[in-house]
């Protein structure tokens, strides 16, 4: 009886310890993420300035869909998403597959080089790319020297090319990052699976589609969600590479929301409505992603 009682209390102690361990982190997420989301939603239903806010229902949401700059920022963000994410993820898987070869030499060197861009801050690389693609920048110098252009082309001054520069910069910065996850995923796959495929006469391409991609599926879904999330929240690049220009042609949703809330006349209500819109898109895309990932099982 005595020992049983003691055993119970030990178990209870363990259970209490478990809850105690996860409490600080849980509380911080509730206070710093969930509670602000509720406040952001309430704020999105109000209009006003400074400390005077009154509930005006969905007027902020209605305004959003008539705001040309906001709509432009939505199309821009989706443009980056649709072009950059697939190119980057395919490149990343390809690189991981090539690096996961036992016969390959200088593996560590290649891996380090490919991952190195991730060691720079987003603002740093945005500035570097801004200068590389400037009218008197290195890329233009090279193109003129090669005789392709007769004078420097204003890459960042034209809507189409400015967007391309942002996409190139994003691919440069994030491919290595995603590659690390794929490489880690591949290292968890038994190498013998590949050797068996080789013996069966499968070529590199077949092996890639019938072994690598299916086995990496969970990792692919994870990186896909992370990339969508990151791209929908693009801010540093839009601010520092193109400053949203020319004439808002490259502005992203986060950049416009920041401008609305913290530049000139702050409008927290309207900003929150747009931010909530971003949240809903992220949630929908993540949900679709998880569903698609499930049914293929």
């Amino acid at each position, binding site marked *: 009886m005595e020992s049983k009682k003691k055993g119970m209390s030990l178990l209870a102690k363990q259970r209490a*310890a*478990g*809850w105690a*361990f*996860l409490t*600080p*982190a*849980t509380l911080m*997420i509730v206070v*710093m993420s*969930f509670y*602000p*989301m509720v406040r*952001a939603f309430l*704020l999105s239903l109000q209009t006003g300035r400074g400390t005077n806010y009154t509930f005006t229902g969905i007027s902020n949401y209605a305004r959003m869909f008539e705001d040309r700059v906001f709509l432009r920022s939505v199309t821009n963000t989706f443009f980056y998403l649709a072009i950059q994410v697939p190119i980057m993820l395919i490149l990343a898987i390809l*690189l991981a597959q*090539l690096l996961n070869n036992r*016969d*390959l030499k200088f593996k560590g060197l*290649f*891996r*380090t*080089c*490919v991952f*190195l*861009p991730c*060691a*720079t*801050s*987003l*603002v*740093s690389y945005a*500035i*570097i*790319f*801004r*200068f590389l693609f400037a009218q008197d920048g*290195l890329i233009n*110098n090279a193109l003129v020297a090669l005789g392709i252009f007769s004078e420097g082309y204003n890459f960042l001054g034209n809507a189409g090319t400015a967007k391309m520069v942002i996409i190139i910069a994003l691919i*440069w910065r994030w491919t290595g990052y995603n590659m690390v996850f794929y*490489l*880690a995923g591949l290292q*968890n796959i038994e190498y013998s699976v590949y050797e068996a495929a080789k013996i069966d006469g499968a070529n590199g391409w077949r092996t890639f589609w019938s072994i690598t991609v299916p086995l990496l599926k969970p*990792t692919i879904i994870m990186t896909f969600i992370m990339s969508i*999330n990151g791209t929908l*929240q693009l*801010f540093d690049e839009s601010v*520092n590479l193109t400053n949203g220009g020319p004439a808002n042609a490259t502005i992203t949703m*986060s950049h416009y*929301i*920041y401008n609305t*809330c*913290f530049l000139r006349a702050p409008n*927290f209500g309207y900003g*929150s409505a747009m*931010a909530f819109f*971003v*949240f809903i898109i*992220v949630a929908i895309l*993540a949900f679709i992603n998880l569903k698609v990932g499930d049914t293929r099982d």
Partner: protein
Amino acid sequence: MTEPKNRSMIQRRLIPTYIFLTIFSIISIFPFLWMISAATNNYIDISKGRLLPGKYAVENFKNLVAQQPLARAMTNSFVYAIAVTVICLLICSLAGYGFEIYHDKWKDKLFSILLLAMMVPQVATMIPLFQMFSTAKLLNTAVGFFLPMISTPFMIMMFRQNARAFPIDIIEAARIDGLNELQIFYRMFFPTMRSTYAAAAVITFMNAWNAYLWPKVIMTDGKSLNMVMLIANTIGGYKIDYGMIMMGVLFCSIPTMVVFFVLQKQFAEGITGAVK
């Protein structure tokens, strides 16, 4: 006898792979090399397309220090990033360990609710957080900087995944030896999970060092700025001095690169555990 021949054949077949990887590596490191060369050249040489290191490093540095509070921003960045890293690793590893080792139905449910926070965009929380923090007088403080960054679902998940590989036998044995639950965590779990901690430290330190949107929102007084804000300020000037700006970018990049190179091996191991 046939082995060396075989090996050279394998290497020959890998030539396209080597070429592709070499080109990709060059593209990856080229902007860094350019950054270093630009930081040591003057405006005229840079815009002429000079790639070799120049002799203007000292002058660029002097210009940078004259125009921007470099020492203050570096100190701020270190204080912010180290505070975030230490606290984040502590509470997220505790949580990941708690969720995995003591898991039951309720904890699993709570965990999947916490994962929803991954979908919460920073732009949505920054407005209410700004309001909350200005009421609490936390603007322009390190505490204000780190509070929203010290608990992330990603970090909890990473520690939880890695805790899966931690043998239950060790815990049982330690309990018999009379260690309490917290002692088991820091005497048993912490030392065996070094590579996970290293990976988590690399990711958290880089995120904190490179944070831009959040400090831009709450560091309003011009004294609390971090390095990233400082270099963003340098391009806002009337005259763009490439050399000086690149010197700033170089300073901003060195700490994250050092962290990355020092912990690279552990980083790769930790990620491998997290993807399992």
